[in-house]
């Protein structure tokens, strides 16, 4: 009898402890707690139309019908913001250089995103005018990356090089270095990309946003560019702006979620 009482007492104690433990850590009914930050990974996939971009070995066809190969496709993604229900997340020191030839450059993390539901990302293709006039820079903006005009200060916002049998150049080359940051010559473009489905940043894991960048969009709309007449664009002005108005349409979000 005494043993039974002892057993019962022990069992009661255990259950009491267990219950009290459960009470201390109840499962959260709210998927978006008030506070905390999570990670959102932006992953870029460079494409030509619906094909994946492959440097040097693949032939593609542009909107005008010209055949071409790509040897370089590099661009700046800067001033990244996520637009949420409760507020806007702004990445600090937000300068990224996406280089097709360097797989490690094709993604970056927004690591301190407040818990919230986000429906779109706003970013700049190119580098803001302030950093174009602020002297020597480092990191993604180091001129060593070859995305900087030395003779006419400023960043190359988007660089695409390649070859085309239709190119008007004697070596059949294609050179597009879009630059110019000031006033009417500005080639940096800010775009907002809506997610197919909203993402919820919470403790349940990292979110991923897949962004496709279409090389063909540079030559498509609103300005159809044919390689016979525009095979080199390498100075500020009308042609560079024509490219910029086109590449403003080159990004789309193909996936957003955990």
């Amino acid at each position: 009898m005494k043993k039974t009482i002892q057993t019962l007492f022990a069992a009661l104690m255990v259950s009491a402890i267990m219950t009290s433990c459960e009470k201390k850590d109840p499962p959260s009914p709210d998927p978006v707690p008030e506070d905390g930050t999570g990670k959102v990974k932006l992953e870029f996939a460079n494409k030509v139309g619906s094909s994946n971009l492959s440097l040097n070995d693949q032939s593609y066809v542009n909107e005008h019908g010209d055949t071409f190969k790509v040897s370089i496709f590099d661009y700046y993604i800067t001033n990244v913001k996520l637009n949420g229900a409760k507020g806007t997340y702004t990445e600090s020191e937000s300068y990224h250089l996406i280089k097709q030839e360097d797989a490690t450059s094709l993604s970056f993390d927004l690591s301190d995103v407040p818990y919230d539901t986000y429906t779109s990302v706003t970013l700049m293709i190119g580098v803001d005018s302030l950093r174009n006039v602020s002297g020597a820079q480092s990191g993604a903006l180091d001129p060593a990356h070859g995305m900087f005009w030395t003779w006419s200060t400023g960043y190359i916002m988007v660089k695409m090089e390649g070859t085309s049998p239709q190119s008007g150049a004697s070596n059949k080359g294609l050179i597009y270095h879009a630059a110019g940051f000031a006033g009417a010559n500005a080639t940096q473009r800010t775009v907002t990309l809506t997610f197919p489905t909203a993402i919820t940043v919470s403790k349940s894991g990292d979110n991923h946003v897949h962004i496709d960048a279409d090389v063909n969009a540079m030559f498509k709309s609103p300005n159809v560019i044919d390689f016979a007449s525009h095979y080199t664009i390498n100075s500020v002005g009308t042609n560079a702006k024509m490219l910029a108005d086109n590449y403003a349409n080159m990004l789309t979000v193909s996936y957003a979620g955990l």
Partner: protein
Amino acid sequence: MKKAIISGICILLPLVIWTAGCKKETIDPRTWEPVALNVPKGWPEPAYTFANNKLTWEGFTLGRKLFYDVRFSRDSTVSCGSCHQQFASFAHAGHDLSHGVDDRLGTRNSPSLANMAWHSSFFWDGGVNNLENQPINPIQNPLEMDLPITEAVNRIAADAVYKAHFKRAFGDETINSQRIFKAMAQFMGIMVSADSRYDKHERNETGGTFDTHEERGLTLFRQHCAACHKEPLFSDFSFRNNGLAPAIVMTDSGRARITGDMADMYKFKVPSLRNIAITQPYMHDGRVRTLEDAVEHYRTGVYATVTTDPLVKDGINLTDDDKKDIVAFLKTLTDSTFINNPLFAEPGQ
């Protein structure tokens, strides 16, 4: 005990010698001096303020070492100081155009580097907008130093002496293009020339006496030239076509190359006239050899095109005496304090 002392000496002595050897290489032979950008009285605020580039003796001396380092040229033959010589107010004496690596000839005359902090743009076409972005241009230009900036950084970063310099200047041994350019800006940014006879004249100091020709020259200068060559910097830093006939071969479109605007064809940055008597030859392509010929250009040599500046389009009406007196005045702009300042000289080897 004795043995311990001897072995101690054996260890310490080479260490002392080694450290001393290092010191000799790393520490500048000249002692620490305060460095600052001193804005001369009556001058406007400088365009470059060092707000994002803390000026220190360590940064300044590092910048000076870099400025005089030939390793910034592909074949290690040319430094910044090769085409910017102190005795010529950091212009290239006697060279209409300058030769870079392999004796390749550039297309424009090497300008004086006096008072760079007041310049809002750099190069004859003003293509560069910040003092810190200036050096990369000649380093990478195939006609000048012809070295990719990545290679330039690698060369400097491989040098233990430089590592020590960068640590002293920036707190750690990291060497990148940003730090190289910031250090160079510290050196070039405080090259102030404000102690010519003209300056002393304006400050009513001894040594500032003008003779009658120089006084008359100053009056004529203010009447005919100062609209563009604005005192006290002797430039308004605008871009103008001063009526030089465009070259028949290799025509230089000037500012238009930067802006893409046809209205800027053949326009170049108005050069400062400080130290002008020692920075010959003149004009963006060095085509004018003497001060007399430079003034004569504005009197009789102006070639009018659509973009020629209205102030010079019809020529400037000057007598022979006027011309002589203006030239006499221009010679008062030579600043021997500046060109002899040991602070800006190449460090002893």
